[in-house]
């Protein structure tokens, strides 16, 4: 009788130990799962933030033109900057190319700089495009889409109008083909302009 009781006690203890073990493993699995979900959520938030189009202070960038000149946005402080993202394979970019070049030629002595960043393109095709439209303002490849990511562009063409203080005043998604629209936008970034 005493042996039976001992066996039952041992069996009960074994069962309890097994249940404790299962509970510990359950807790470990739950922790791993919750940790994984938190990591994914953090990554999702980070991705969403990085995909927002830039506003306010213009993100700094440096690029090298196709001619080999290095230009940094910070060096252009004090001037209005028209930053245009484009690509040779982009059909709508062709619609605005003549107007951009015409405006650059007119405004380059008025404290406004035009910059072209070539997005996910190939140098031979890009150079052919620049030659076709006779584009003379500084243009260069946006290597590894570094600036495109910082500015959160969703496509090309996109044009950022940055004032003399380095603040983004306007963003135009798609081609700018209307000269009156372009002039109104340039007025917002003209150095010394007080009607912002």
């Amino acid at each position, binding site marked *: 009788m005493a042996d039976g009781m001992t066996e039952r006690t041992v069996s009960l203890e074994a*069962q309890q130990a097994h249940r404790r073990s*299962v509970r510990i493993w359950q807790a470990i699995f739950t922790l791993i799962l919750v940790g994984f979900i938190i990591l994914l959520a953090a*990554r999702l938030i980070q991705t969403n933030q990085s995909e927002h189009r830039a506003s306010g202070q213009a993100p700094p960038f440096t690029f090298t033109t196709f001619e080999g000149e290095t230009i940094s946005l910070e060096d252009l402080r004090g001037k209005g900057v028209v930053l245009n993202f484009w690509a040779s394979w982009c*059909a709508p970019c062709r619609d605005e190319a003549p107007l951009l070049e015409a405006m650059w030629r007119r405004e380059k002595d008025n404290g406004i700089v035009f910059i072209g960043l070539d997005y996910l393109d190939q140098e*031979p*095709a890009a150079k052919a495009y620049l030659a076709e439209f006779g584009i003379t303002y500084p243009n260069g490849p946006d290597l590894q889409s570094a600036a495109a990511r910082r500015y959160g562009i969703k496509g090309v063409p996109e044009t950022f109008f940055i004032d003399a203080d380095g603040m983004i005043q306007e963003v135009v998604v798609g081609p700018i083909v209307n000269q009156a629209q372009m002039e109104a936008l340039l007025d917002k970034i003209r150095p010394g302009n007080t009607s912002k």
Partner: protein
Amino acid sequence: MYRIKYGLLFLFIWVSVSIAALPIGDAERAYAQTGEVSSAGAISAEVNVTPNDVNEVAKELWCPLCNGVRLDACELKACEQMRDLIAEQLAEGQNKEQIKNYFVEQYGPQVLGEPPLEGFNWLAWILPFLVLGVGGVFLWRAMQRMIAARPQGATSAPLQPVTDEPVMANEYNRRLEEELKRYG
């Protein structure tokens, strides 16, 4: 019974986490404006590079504008220009690795279709193997325990009362044996 339940739970978690940990394509944006398809021939006849040579390189690169489309199968004009450039570089005598390195320099490591080993991306590399390994060990052990719990030589489930309280079952068996001895 609970062993089977936990076995299934492990299997579910293992499969779920394995699926969740699969590398997710980088959120490279697809552009509506890139839909233009050029009908121009991709390769100049004057260079001694065949379309197969180009595709040999292109199939190891990915369209930087699309999600999950290989360069040799992409119909965007941007991709066609990339293939043209590959043809030019091959004609200049560059090898596959040099060309791939050039595109990584221009477009980033995404063009290789692999997430770079930095930041959160290391998870995409390590986690599937970790989950597969750890999950596999747990599944193996759970199965071993289930096999060990089965009576030797049994070909089907033993005729025992099914209960979540094994102590009660032991008590039941003990009393049954006593009764059988008494009246058997």
